């Protein structure tokens, strides 16, 4: 099977366990999910729910124990290092919680880094659109150490978008930011999905951050347990509170 039209990334009965025997820990227990194109999806869950593992597996950063993962038209499962590297370079964009930028490069060089690594030309018009959207026009020649945390994270966003990947994965992108900067970054991610049709998948444990998403998936103990569409922060918070009472079926 392949990821059909309208789906940017797909997990099919994905299992992921670490260790073996008695010490084995199951992080994902048969997760299946379709992540639609041009949508901003948030994956939520308490610590240890497997939300980061799910993202890592979807993004080709980690392999799965069983099941299949697709990104765009590419079957990620079974790819060797070279294939995974190219997938990450050409089809996926990343925003990490911190340490997103290379200190030796300017903001502009950091933004175009994935293109430079792949030996691709920068689409100047698109670059300008992205840079203006994140509002970094006058910061392009600065080094990361000369930028604030929020600015750094916006550079990371611009970098993730500039190669027009199939999916942008954001791992707690606002985890290290103050609320003002966080709101800017989240607003930008939201606009990217709505205005540019960019598929975005964000892992977070912050209900407020999740409220920017079009769709929120809740994970607990390696299972998808709930799902909300365009929820408010309060709805997310309520759902989180009641996650404790959700009984997870054991395989």
């Amino acid at each position: 099977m392949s990821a059909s039209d309208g789906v940017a990334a797909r997990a099919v009965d994905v299992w992921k366990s670490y260790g073996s025997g008695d010490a084995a820990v199951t992080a994902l227990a048969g997760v299946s999910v379709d992540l639609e194109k041009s949508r901003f999806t948030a994956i939520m869950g308490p610590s240890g729910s497997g939300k980061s593992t799910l993202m890592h597996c979807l993004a080709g950063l980690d392999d799965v124990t069983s099941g299949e993962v697709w990104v765009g038209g590419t079957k990620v499962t079974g790819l060797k290092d070279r294939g995974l590297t190219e997938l990450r370079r050409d089809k996926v964009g990343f925003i990490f919680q911190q340490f997103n930028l290379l200190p030796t490069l300017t903001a502009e060089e950091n933004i175009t880094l994935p293109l430079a690594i792949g030996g691709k030309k920068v689409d100047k018009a698109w670059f300008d659109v992205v840079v203006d959207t994140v509002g970094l026009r006058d910061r392009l020649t600065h080094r990361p150490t000369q930028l604030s945390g929020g600015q750094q994270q916006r550079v990371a966003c611009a970098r993730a978008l500039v190669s027009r990947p199939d999916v942008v994965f954001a791992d707690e992108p606002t985890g290290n930011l103050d609320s003002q900067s966080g709101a800017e970054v989240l607003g930008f991610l939201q606009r990217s999905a709505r205005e540019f049709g960019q598929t975005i998948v964000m892992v977070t444990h912050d209900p407020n951050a999740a409220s920017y998403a079009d769709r929120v998936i809740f994970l607990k103990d390696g299972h998808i347990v709930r799902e909300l569409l365009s929820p408010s922060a309060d709805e997310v918070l309520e759902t989180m509170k009641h996650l404790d009472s959700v009984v997870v079926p054991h395989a």
Partner: protein
Amino acid sequence: MLKATIKSLLSRKLRLVLSALAVVLGVMFVSGSFVLTDTLQRSFTDLFSSAFANVDVSVTPKAEKGKQPEPLTPQAIADVKSVAGVASAVGDVQGSARPIGKNGKVITTSGSPRFGFNWTGTGQEKIRDGKAPAADNEVALGGYLASTGGFKVGDDISLLTLEPKKTFKVTGIYEYAGGRDSLGGELSVAFTEPVAQQLLLGKKDVFSGVTVTAAQGTTDEALRDAVAAKMGSGYDVKTGAVLAKEQADQINEGLKFFNYVLLGFAGIALFVGIFIILNTFSIIVAQRTRELALLRSMGASRGQVIGSVVLEALVIGLIASIVGLGAGVGVGALLATIFSSLGGSSLQLAGIGVPMSAIISSFAVGMVVTVVAAVMPALRASRIAPVAAMREAATPDRPLTKITITGALVAAAGGASLALGFNQASLPLIFGGILVAFVGVALLTPILSKPMVSLIGRLLSWSMPGLLGRRNSARNPRRTAITAAALMVGISLITGVSVVLTSATKSIEKLASGQLQTDLIISGEGQMEGEAATFQRDVLTKVEKTDGVRSAVGWSQDGVLQGESQLFAVGVTDMPALTTMFALKPKSGNITPLKDDQVALPEEMAAEKGWTVGSKVSLQLAKAPEPRDYTVAFIWAKSQVLQGALVLPESASKSFRSDQIAQAFVQVAPGTSAADVQKRVEPLFADNPEITVQDRSAFVKQTTSQFDTVLLMIQILLALAILIAVLGVINTLALSVIERTRELGLLRAIGMRRSQVMRMITVESVVISVFGAVLGLAVGLALGIATVQALKDQGISEIGLPWATMVQYLVVAAFVGVVAAILPAIRAARLNVLDAIAYE
């Protein structure tokens, strides 16, 4: 605190190994030198005591100053024999004898003597095959000569002695106790006594010494005293044991010098090692800043922090010293084995020993070097305020002003010491100056590294990984600078030496083309047991009469005594012809043929001695019964071709130790080709295979080719210093890879391929190495040119720059960079992306 130190040491095994390796190699060089020379010294001592095993007392004629000793007469031997307590007294005849191999070339050794002697049947030599020589045309060969030259009993062998080539029949082959072919790689041949006397001493019925054995009940010392009393003051009378010790001491003196040379290079290697350890500790301390700050905030004092770092250094130094000592014993033993087999596998090695000096110096050097290198980083670590260190931003870029000013001052001090050293010809000042200058330049490297690294990097950064590599190498100027400076030391020394040698070659070439008006040069191949190979005067006459020869001049040479000082003198056959060929110009007096009581000398000798034309000079010639007065006929202006030589008339040659021609020069007739004349002249020397006829360019090449050997030796000895510097590059890269784990993880996460990661690390490595090489070349050029300037008066008039060699070093440095990057690059490429991102 001790526990914390040890735990932290163990958790950094890789760093420990890398930084210790530099010390291990240095210590290995030191202890290896001691083990090698100690083993060789004991081997030579054994060799000589076995060589004099059956000599109780030896009698040789005493040489008067400046005069050749008169050989012993049969009467003297009879006198020795008449002394009470003498069991036997046998006259020895010994002298230089060079065998010619079956290929027509003279057989050479690597330093061991080649000699002939009279077969007496009473020596240590025992006939192994055939029989002792009995007729005038018969000889016996030492087992080593027989095996080297492939001679068997019944073969013919040609020998060069005082007389030209003579051919003999081999009647026997002899060996030494234990079936040994030789005692120490010497080539020896035994003649009948009259033949030995004629060929080796040049006279019938004379001896070079007497070997005396003591009768039962007489001690060697008593016998020596009795013989000395009988013979009087004209003779040296010594016991065999003393002779053995004297000869061994002479060799061991040379070995001691050899040891100093090796230790000098070991010192350079350790000096480079200091850079590496300093760098490693700086990086480790930087990475441990938070850990140390935690200790400080828990109440550890500054002293304790310093102590902890220094203790770590001590432990590393101790372990490295032990390993280095062990490795040094192995290397010393290996080199001793190689050395002994060089001499024809005939020097029997005494057992490998580990002298106390090796142990003491290993530990002293290893630990002192390590601790010295660790003190700076330790001080820096202790100065970090606990709160500052706990924060994320651990190592801010410190300004380079202070270090740059210090560097400039230190470099200037080094330069001053160097200049003073050259001025006063003081080696300690010169070497000290070079060392201090290195430290100064090393301190200046951080400030140089910014522009230089970006310049070098620009050539390599055509792609993104290249750009990142270049930026990374510019990231920490101090670290890059120290790593590069370590490489600089070795390369600058080689470059310096290379500049001096190239300049010397160029000077000689210029001299030869400008002032040497001779077409052919006839000379012996090097020194033969202290005497140059020579040929007969009648051969020179034949050369003169050869078709196409315009003129031919030759000289015999010897040392002559003037008062207390020894002068180098030549007896020239045709001074006016030599004047033309060497383009000599008179300084005072006219250049005329010398009369029997006249001498001529160069300007600088005249100035030194205070002689002018007409001065009377009293000279003692080796074979003259007494000193004789000569008058200075003329003085020639300073010439690079003929300097430091006193010219005597041809007639004086008869009183030289050998009146044969040592060197001759030929000018061909106009319109004649030198190559044609060379072909006609060469056959005249068929009986003198040690003599070569060369045209001017071949002669220059032969003279300068020894420089290549010197350069090669220095390159080999400095290879260790460069190897240690390479370790430093590996070390720096490995530590940087660890430090930048998260960055590498990020790069891999956003799609950098493994090959690109490796390329990035390789570019960084090459940039650092090439930076070090460029620095080394620059400093080496400066050192070399300064040395050449200082040696101007010694005849190095031209400055020659070894461009080709320098380009080679640059290429080698780039290659070294690539090699040094291999392991760190693989490590970086293998990082697990997820772990790397999560790395703290």
